[in-house]
């Protein structure tokens, strides 16, 4: 195993101080013909070299185990660093950085037991977020702090996703069924509802032909047949990652919230075996094609973790054209956009004209803007009222093209969940 440049022995500033002090003593001893500084200089000069020789001669191997627990906005980050035989765990220094989107402890709790260093930090996510916790830097540092060497271990960043809990409670939603993708082969259909999927509890609005009378007689309660076509559907989630007048910070903030919520939505729909696709529209459209299963969950989560704000705005029609090339029309489409300006509001109409039934979920920028104003209290109140009126106006205009949900409380998706559970309301809109 060869050590990279970062895993070589490094002198710490204290070593430089000692070496400079020792060298000065040596020079002074020769110039003044006085051996006393020489005696002081000897320990100072030799200590760094002795520390380097006494320590491990190559990057020490340690085992790092990281874990994230907690629900809702709580992020309980804990880890264990186990040292090998070559170094003492007490000489290991663990340095890590808290992701910027999380808040909380900067000084984690440390427990050192035997050959292990255990640490724990309690963080919170103020808003829905996808945060990447980079693996910590584990350093062996000699007890004097003269030299250090980075340890070797398997480095896998942890991804923490926190989204509104309601999205997991959406339940069965009737999604639009689309034509098969090129290359997709469907099995032979049996009956008008397609292949039999399973038996479920009957609902009051189930027609008598759907009731499985034999199963009902055996179980003593009403059971109905469920078919693949009833069970699954297709969903496309489109994120608007174009810059808006909110500025880079505001846009990034909202995009972070949208990314996290998109992960939650895809989790929710993939759990009921729906096919889910993803599009992130910045300058161009980055897509994850329609698919289902756990692998698709990983694909979508990875794509959303990588998604970044585009530095250049792009016309909404480009998004619609790209979506049409990648996805079949008729696909239920959830567009997440801040609707902070007119071009942002154009996305839904263009998609709708290309044949995609669109629902717009719009995280409101007002909570972000409210905290950053430098106005006096009365002016602030007036500005907030005007901003709210402008926002209402934008939402009303967006409603003319597609159902639009204004999302002000980022931790609650109640209105959206309520909406998708009632497709009749959607059609009426």
């Amino acid at each position, binding site marked *: 195993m060869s050590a990279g440049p970062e895993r070589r*022995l490094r002198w710490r500033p*204290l070593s430089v101080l000692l070496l400079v002090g020792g060298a000065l003593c040596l020079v002074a001893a020769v110039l003044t013909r006085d051996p006393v500084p020489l*005696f002081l200089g000897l320990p*100072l000069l030799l200590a760094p070299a002795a520390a380097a020789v006494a320590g491990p001669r190559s990057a020490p191997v340690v085992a790092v185990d990281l874990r994230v627990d907690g629900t809702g906005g709580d992020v309980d980050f804990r880890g264990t660093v186990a040292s090998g035989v070559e170094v003492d765990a007490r000489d290991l220094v*663990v*340095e890590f950085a808290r992701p910027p989107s999380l808040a909380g402890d900067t000084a984690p709790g440390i427990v050192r037991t035997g050959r292990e260093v255990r640490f724990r930090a309690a963080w919170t996510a103020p808003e829905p977020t996808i945060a990447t916790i980079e693996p910590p830097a584990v350093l062996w540092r*000699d*007890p004097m*702090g003269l030299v250090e060497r980075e340890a070797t271990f398997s480095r896998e960043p942890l991804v923490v996703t926190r989204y509104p809990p309601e999205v997991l409670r959406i339940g069965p939603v009737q999604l639009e069924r689309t034509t098969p993708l090129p290359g997709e082969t469907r099995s032979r259909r049996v009956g008008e509802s397609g292949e039999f999927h399973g038996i479920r509890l009957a609902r009051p609005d189930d027609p008598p032909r759907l009731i499985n009378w034999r199963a009902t007689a055996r179980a003593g309660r009403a059971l109905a047949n469920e078919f693949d076509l009833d069970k699954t559907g297709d969903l496309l989630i489109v994120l608007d990652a174009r810059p808006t007048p909110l500025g880079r910070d505001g846009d990034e903030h909202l995009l972070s919230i949208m990314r996290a919520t998109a992960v939650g939505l895809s989790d929710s729909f993939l759990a009921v075996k729906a096919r889910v696709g993803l599009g992130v529209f910045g300058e161009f459209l980055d897509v994850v094609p329609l698919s289902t299963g756990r692998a698709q969950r990983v694909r979508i989560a990875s794509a959303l973790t990588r998604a970044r704000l585009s530095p250049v705005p792009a016309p909404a029609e480009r998004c619609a054209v790209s979506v049409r090339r990648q996805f079949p029309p008729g696909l239920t489409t959830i567009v997440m956009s801040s609707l902070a300006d007119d071009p942002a509001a154009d996305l839904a109409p263009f998609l709708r004209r290309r044949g995609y039934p669109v629902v717009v979920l719009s995280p409101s920028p007002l909570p972000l803007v409210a905290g950053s104003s430098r106005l006096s209290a009365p002016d602030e109140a007036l500005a907030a009222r005007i901003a709210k009126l402008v926002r209402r106006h934008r939402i009303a205009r967006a409603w003319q093209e597609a159902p639009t949900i204004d999302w002000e409380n980022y931790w609650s998706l109640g209105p959206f969940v309520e909406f998708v559970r009632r497709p009749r309301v959607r059609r009426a809109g």
Partner: protein
Amino acid sequence: MSATTVGAAARPDRLPSLVALLVAAVLLGYLSGVPDGWGIVLAAAAVLAAALLRQSSADAVAAYAPVPVVVVLVVEAVGAPVGIGTEIVAGLAGLAFLVWLADDPSRPVGGAARSLGTVAVPALAVGIAWSSALFVPAGALPLGVAGGLLALTLGAVALLLGRPTVFDREEA
């Protein structure tokens, strides 16, 4: 993004090493020849300042704790008159300083014991140098040897600072 050092925990005072450093520095200050007892005051003040800086909760401040001690020890050693006792006191002050460094309160306890190997090498060198000074007669030759040693040491320091990989066992 806030980088957090996990080692920065409670900072209990490490009295034995602090006392050893204080005694050695004060003794060197006493022998340094600085008039009116200012050598002692200077040494005590430097050690006290270093101890206080180390107690600081800010790691950036605590990192400067060794500076006053190094400066004062060098100043006192440079001004000290020749003498067998002064030489050994200077050497011991340097060693006490190393032990005090190893007792860093921001690190787990037992640093002094764990750094025994690091302190032993300089201690051996001081012992050899002191016994040589004690038993080898003085003359023009020692000065030449000292000059040669100086050149050699400065060269070694430059090499070590430039290529720390000489201590690596593996291929770079």
